[in-house]
């Protein structure tokens, strides 16, 4: 009996004649209009609700059959949903029409404490804190040292060990001086592989399928009379021999957000990134002419060796792909 155990503690409210017990009591009257159900015709509402439940029963039984017989996803989903729809419909009708229609109210009490309550709390907190902490500066310091060391140590498993430092992987690709251009199967690409206006994704042999070394090799139409595609004036000096016989290669990693710049339009000689629609002009050093990409695609310097295979004169002379903090003006 709770009362007895209260009494043994000597704290029973009954022992204190002035103590008043507050018990919230519902002032209910069965005949109050709020307690009348909303339905004018309860019998009908009951039939409607129960037919919802019967529909649910049928739906779930159908779901069982569909599962057992391994019917298609459509029938599984349909029977399942019919089951839940019937259940939900019945419950809502029940709650809406066959329960007291209300409205009811409850009172709202202030949540903010009174000045006294707050004062008492603050006092208690401060006094106990004073006793426990004040004049224990040395303890606090040693505690701080211990937790601080733990915090620093913890940052290794939680952070540092998660991955290697970037180092050179962001600035260098697998392309090296003399790398062969190979396709995804590892086959070396030669001058006979591309139609005029054609294009192909190529990799260095050491990194086939690589996310950063993927490069687009394009055969621009018409082939240049001079033997090399003419670079725009600002690159005339260093890029004069980079595009032999009308073949030109650009990094396929978009300088905007790193998507593969996978579309080449032969007519306009533009490369398009399908993610955010940046357009690069292949005949103009892949300078972005439209969209959010801020920098041209890096160009891979090519040469054709004696056997007619494409090879890289060197790796890319700038980091490929999107920008990052450590990357300055190259």
């Amino acid at each position, binding site marked *: 009996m709770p009362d007895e155990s209260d009494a043994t503690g000597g704290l029973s409210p009954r022992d204190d004649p002035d103590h008043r*017990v507050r*018990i919230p009591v519902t002032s209910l009257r069965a005949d109050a209009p709020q307690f009348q159900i909303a339905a004018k015709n309860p019998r009908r509402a009951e039939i409607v609700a129960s037919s919802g439940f019967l529909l649910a029963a049928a739906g779930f039984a159908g779901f069982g059959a569909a599962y057992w017989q391994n019917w298609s996803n459509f029938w599984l989903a349909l029977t399942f949903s019919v089951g839940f729809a019937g259940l939900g419909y019945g419950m809502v009708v029940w709650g809406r029409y066959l329960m007291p229609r209300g409205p009811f109210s409850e009172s709202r009490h202030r949540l903010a404490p009174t000045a006294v309550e707050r004062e008492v709390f603050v006092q208690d907190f401060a006094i106990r804190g004073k006793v426990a902490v004040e004049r224990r500066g040395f303890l606090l310091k040693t505690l701080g040292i211990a937790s601080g060391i733990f915090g620093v140590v913890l940052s290794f498993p939680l952070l540092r060990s998660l991955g290697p430092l970037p180092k050179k992987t962001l600035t260098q690709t697998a392309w090296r001086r003399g790398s062969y251009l190979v396709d995804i199967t590892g086959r070396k690409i030669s001058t006979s592989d591309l139609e005029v206006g054609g294009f192909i994704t190529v990799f260095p042999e050491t990194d086939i399928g690589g996310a950063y070394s993927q490069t687009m090799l394009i055969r621009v139409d018409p082939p240049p009379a001079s033997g090399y595609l003419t670079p725009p004036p600002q690159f005339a000096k260093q890029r004069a021999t980079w595009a032999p016989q009308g073949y030109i290669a650009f990094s396929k990693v978009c300088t905007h957000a790193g998507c593969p710049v996978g579309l080449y339009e032969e007519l306009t000689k533009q490369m398009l990134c399908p993610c955010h629609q940046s357009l690069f002009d292949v005949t103009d050093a892949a300078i972005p002419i439209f969209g959010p990409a801020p920098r041209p695609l890096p160009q891979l310097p090519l040469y054709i060796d004696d056997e007619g295979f494409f090879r890289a004169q060197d790796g890319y002379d700038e980091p490929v792909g999107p920008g990052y903090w450590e990357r300055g003006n190259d």
Partner: protein
Amino acid sequence: MIDALFNWFDERLGISGSGRKMLNKIFPDHWSFLIGEIALYSFIVLLGTGVFLTLYFVPSSKDIVYEGPYAPLRGQIVSEAFASTLKLSFAVRGGLLMRQMHHWAANIFVGSIVVHMLRIFFTGAFRKPRELNWIVGSTLLILAIFNGFLGYSLPDDLVSGTGIRISFSIVESIPLIGSYAAFFLFGGNFPGNAIIPRFFILHVLILPAVIVGLLSAHLGMLVRQKHTQFPGPGNTPRNVVGAPLWPTFVAKTTGFMCLTVAVTGLLSAFFQINPVWLYGPYVPYKVSYAVQPDWYMGWLDGALRIMPSWEIVGFGHMIPNVFFPAILLPGITFGVLQAWPFIEARITHDHAEHQILDRPRDRPKRTAFGAAVFSFYFVLFGASSTDVLANYLSISLNVVLTSFRYLAVGVPVVVFAVTYRICKEMQRVPTAGKRKRANVVLRSAEGGYSTVPAEQRPGDAVPRVEPLPLDEDIQFLPALAGAPRAGNGSPEEQAPEPPAEQSDGGRRGGVFTIPRVYR
């Protein structure tokens, strides 16, 4: 039997007192209060279907040769994650249903949170004392968006893999720590093998745990602070008017939960979602046309697209282009969102407690501002399909993109002005939104006209019923509390009680029996 069981628990946990208070918790009857419930119930669907999915999904990017029942991909090299997603879709009984329901429920989850948040915003429900709950709620929105992104990245298909690639670039773009953060998150340079298992544990354990915790806090604060309510006859700042938790609300809300499940199921029956077998496995050098994220990431994708091609370079460092639309914009968005209650209080100097909701028209500036901001994100969302629009409307991509740049600036301005104007107009018509009583014009035989009000339409003439307080505190003397049997009336009792049928009185000091009125 049930009595005995209840007693057993009650004696040990003391349920009756606080439990009865809980039974009386009032839920206002307004449709807009249901939107948050949709979010809650779609989250339950997510948990249920998600547990099913974890039984079969393999979070690994290890390459294997696909040998499953889907013929077009047989023999191809795919990751274990992708292969297990196909297995879930084709070989596991009910697996496709669970996958589709999970994905649909995620879309509904984020969507209902957004609409719920708009309701809270436009009615001013975030004002004192509910600022904390606004912060918790908007944090839930952020987590829901994040977890949605992580979730649809897991199957390792071509579309989601491209999304992961973009997310790497976005993390990489953060000044100072970006490249380190990206390498630590991905366990090395993109793509690596770590990201699928890491996203998996974040998606199924860590973020759901945080969401459940915050959700509990959200609902706990709701119970503690009680609901707000719209102004209306009988609604005062000192009360809450509506239906009690037991039994009316329980019946309605359980039904509503079932209906939410049913709608999710029907969507999964009729509308295919995320058919990853059509996209194929992710390969870093491949990409498909019309690469779009789920809708709740659309505004970010749109922002990435319409951002001018700027980039800040200097002092040997770079702030990349994607930083502005993908880090700065969401940072400002969510920052302002979380701080909004305080921003508004600072502007209006309104630091009072508010339990009664605003009608949006009565706060034209807030309403216009909210509508303008929302329209901005809506334009960004539209901009995430520039390529599809250009293709569909057969106009040049350049025109579409340029127009979106102008729209992003122009639409919010127009929306602000128009919304403000509409609010002002509506204020002037007090009956706006209410049904008007029709007039019947009669022409007499002599040609004269007279007007009489039409008959009341059904539903218009329902007499208003005063709300009945469920929790009136009455005070009584301890001496009376000691009485062995209940219900024989303390002097302060306000309403005569119906005859008591059965009593739990002896156990609790014999004060009252609860009248059984729900017969």
